[in-house]
């Protein structure tokens, strides 16, 4: 819920960030006093490959309008191979969601290194803008979880 209630649509965005690259990248954005929308809520995971498709679906169920996964750039994974698995899993999951008619722009994977604070901000700005434009998640919502 946002304080700007009743004015315009404020999307809820869940960003899963791997501990080693993207979460640090997000920290760097803070250290450099950059800014991105408050809609973005970050969840720390050890590696992007820790992200189970059910977490993505769960987020949508509970009211997320967009879900973004961030990991180390391919080849830079702290665990060597994790993000390669993420890449495949999420490509297939997103393709399936798209196949079911869920807007494909609601899900995204981005590679953000620990040094890319600015990139983290750019990615989040862009993603938030796209989701705001897309409007509330209706196709993968759970009516019980809607705020009343």
């Amino acid at each position, binding site marked *: 819920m946002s304080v700007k209630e009743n004015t315009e649509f404020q999307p809820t965005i869940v960003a899963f960030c791997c501990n080693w690259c993207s979460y640090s990248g997000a920290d760097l954005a803070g250290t450099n006093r950059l800014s991105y929308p408050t809609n973005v809520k970050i969840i720390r995971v050890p590696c992007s490959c820790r992200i189970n498709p059910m977490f993505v679906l769960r987020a949508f169920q509970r009211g997320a309008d967009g879900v973004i996964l961030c990991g180390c750039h391919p080849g830079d994974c702290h665990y060597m191979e994790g993000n390669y698995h993420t890449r495949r899993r999420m490509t297939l999951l997103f393709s399936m969601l798209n*196949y079911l*008619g869920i807007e494909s*722009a609601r899900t995204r994977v981005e590679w953000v290194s620990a040094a890319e604070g600015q990139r983290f901000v750019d990615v989040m700005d862009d993603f938030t803008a796209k989701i705001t434009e897309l409007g509330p998640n209706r196709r993968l919502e759970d009516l019980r979880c809607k705020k009343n």
Partner: protein
Amino acid sequence: MQEELIKRAVELMEDGTVNRVLGWQKGQFVYDITPAVFTSADELKENFVYNDFCGDNLSKYLKDETEKEGKVLVFLKPCDTYSFNQLLTEYKIHRENVYAIGIECYGKADVELLRRKGIDGILDVKNENGTLKIATIYGDEEVPMMEAMAERCVNCKSKKHVAYDELIGEDGEVLDSNRFDMVEKLEQMSAQERFDFWQGELSRCIRCNACRNVCPACTCEKCVFDNPDSGLYNKAAADSFEEKMFHIIRAYHVAGRCTDCGECSRVCPEHIPLHLLNRKFIKDYNELYGSFMAGAEVGQVSPMVDFTMDNDAEPSIVQKGGAE
């Protein structure tokens, strides 16, 4: 064919190769055939049946069956052999406890397709040279076998037996089927149309779990949907979200392991085309990561646990390629 199978089964029981036979048992109608284990020649002669309605894939039963004492004989249609191999890959079958006979299959009929044509009160069905002669309470009917054939058989992926100890009848080839046509058709629809299509299909789901329980790839000790601690537990879809959740996760969990045997769609009481979800994954990984057929060989590495460093598509490909 049926007589030949019985004869061979009796021989193998008599010479001690096996001590029982996993096959199909006659029902009270021509089509309600039940998987069964036969332990004597008499039982076989009396009740064993192999006809156009023997659609059940017997391979999953081997999971429990091969843990028992002695060797079991199983009859596998070509598509069942893929499930058989996949179960072996996942250490679900004790290979030494099973004697597999590959049998020919020219496609199985689905009684529901006859009913779809308004044929009911079915008393008997005979296949005469590709035409089903159906006797019903309300008179006789004729339907070409092709029109009564299950979708999975019309779009048969392979007539080749990928595993067997012995073959009865001819071995065929992997077929160049049109099984992805419907997936493609859906892909070409707009997102809204696809959503409406699936909403219409999945909203009929009654969560009977037949699709899951019959699936040869679903061999978990405890399914996440039955486990109150899994975060996915639910017994019935209390919201339309949960219908989608169940089917997305079900298809995802068998992706890379699903042999496209089509049992899920066969058993769905609501006729939801569940195979179209599985086939989407198959089509995707075939196109993105190279052709892969689960169960084609024992011990294959599924594309779901594999990767390449340089050649894998980025997830953004979905957005670029997907119709909105």
